[in-house]
């Protein structure tokens, strides 16, 4: 089992970090985002008397935490789509690989890509804006894993849809996250949304995660009911998306979709 997972991880490592442009593409966007939001927030603070609440910390924490979700989803989806683009699915599925080994490998490569992508952004934020993400303490780890789990859930969903319905769904790999963005309350509190949107927001884990983050950074309060919601929702979404992914592979075998899939 481990040799097959390691084989897949080496393959995904080669795809992701095999050339300088591909490596740069992993970390340039989070770093650019941090610089953009950091300078913009600094500008707002310097032109306002409203600077006492550590607004910079809140904005930069939100930017980095949101990017964990985005990078997590993209890392998983792109690694799987690469198999389709390179017409490698047939060879992959006629090997003795088990579906759960593919699932584990995709999760691990997404984790590695996300960490590598975000590390320079965290250092840039620290250097230019004296921003300390680790002020969130233990909850940074909690938020990190819960956000990346949301990314994996979306990643498995998108990968399943592309496998089943073809290239038309590839656009979703980039777009779906932005459908979720307004409901995630990344930059504003939940109660600033209209009531109908609030009802939708609370069925997704990110709204609870970003509410928790603001409570910790602004009031220094840990709201355990939010943490409980995050865990319960994530368990449900990740389980559901993996089961859906495995089910779609089974359906693809029935419909003969695993032969000659590709560009």
């Amino acid at each position: 089992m481990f040799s097959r997972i390691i084989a897949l991880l080496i393959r995904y490592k080669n795809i992701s970090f095999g050339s300088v442009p591909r490596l740069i593409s992993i970390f340039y966007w989070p770093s650019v985002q941090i610089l953009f939001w950091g300078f913009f927030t600094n500008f707002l603070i310097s032109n306002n008397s409203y600077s006492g609440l550590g607004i910079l910390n809140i904005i930069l924490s939100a930017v980095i935490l949101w990017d964990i979700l985005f990078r997590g989803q993209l890392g998983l989806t792109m690694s799987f789509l690469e198999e389709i683009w390179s017409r490698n699915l047939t060879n992959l599925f006629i090997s003795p690989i088990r579906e759960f080994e593919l699932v584990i490998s995709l999760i691990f490569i997404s984790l590695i890509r996300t960490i590598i992508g975000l590390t320079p952004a965290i250092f840039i934020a620290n250097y230019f804006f004296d921003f300390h993400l680790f002020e969130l303490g233990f909850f940074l780890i909690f938020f990190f894993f819960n956000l990346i789990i949301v990314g994996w859930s979306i990643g498995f969903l998108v990968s399943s849809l592309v496998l089943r319905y073809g290239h038309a769904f590839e656009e979703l790999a980039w777009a779906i996250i932005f459908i979720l963005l307004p409901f995630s309350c990344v930059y504003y509190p939940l109660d600033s949304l209209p009531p109908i949107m609030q009802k939708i927001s609370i069925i997704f884990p990110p709204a609870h995660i970003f509410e928790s983050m603001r409570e910790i950074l602004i009031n220094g309060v840990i709201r355990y009911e939010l943490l409980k919601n995050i865990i319960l929702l994530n368990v449900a979404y990740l389980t559901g998306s993996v089961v859906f992914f495995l089910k779609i592979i089974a359906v693809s075998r029935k419909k003969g979709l695993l032969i000659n899939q590709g560009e």
Partner: protein
Amino acid sequence: MNNNLINVVNLVKNFDEQSVIKNISFNVKKNSIVGILGKNGAGKTTLLGMLLGLITPTKGDIFILGKNLKLNKKEILSEINFQSPYVDLPKKMTVEQNLSFYSRLYGVKNFNTVIENLVDDLKIRNLVKKNYGSLSAGQKTKINLCKALLNKPKLLLLDEPTASLDPETSIFIRNYLLEYQKKNSSSILITSHNLDEVQAMCSNIILLKSGEIVSEGNIKQILKNYNYKTLIELFLSEG
């Protein structure tokens, strides 16, 4: 069943309302080379897909190496392999990286030595450092064949094994496969539109037409029974 490497029993495959494989049964003996023939749409690719576990049959059973494919898929897949010009390897990796990747997936022991030997045997040493995506169609065919031999398969399924190869390389690959089959006592299943190649390599054929087997058995015997001189004549009349 013991002398058979493959037993296909009452196999049916329907895609929605369309029946692609219509209740076929056949055996492939150990240590043999069998050609699967048929015009486009006869059901060859679907049959290969089912033998590889890529397509789930609607009805029927496939036994490979005496084991039911439905129940022992992973075990069987580690003993077989497949090559097709229509299936690529990862393009963004070098040939060497691809061969190492698949060796690991198949759990090949001492895979560096295995790769080295195959690379020399198939005369592809000049390609190992190149990106797979940069190779010509003919070079890819050779690399795909190398990948298909990594786990020393007891059953090798080949789809157009010499497609895109020049005549000299085609003959080289054909002879290599014949030698490989004898040396390793494996069985090879070939689908090809190159009937001369099938006649040169295979002892037996299975002729498919619209998802049904219209002829099966020893080539010489079939030609004699139908009073044809060549496979092309048989194919044009019966296929």
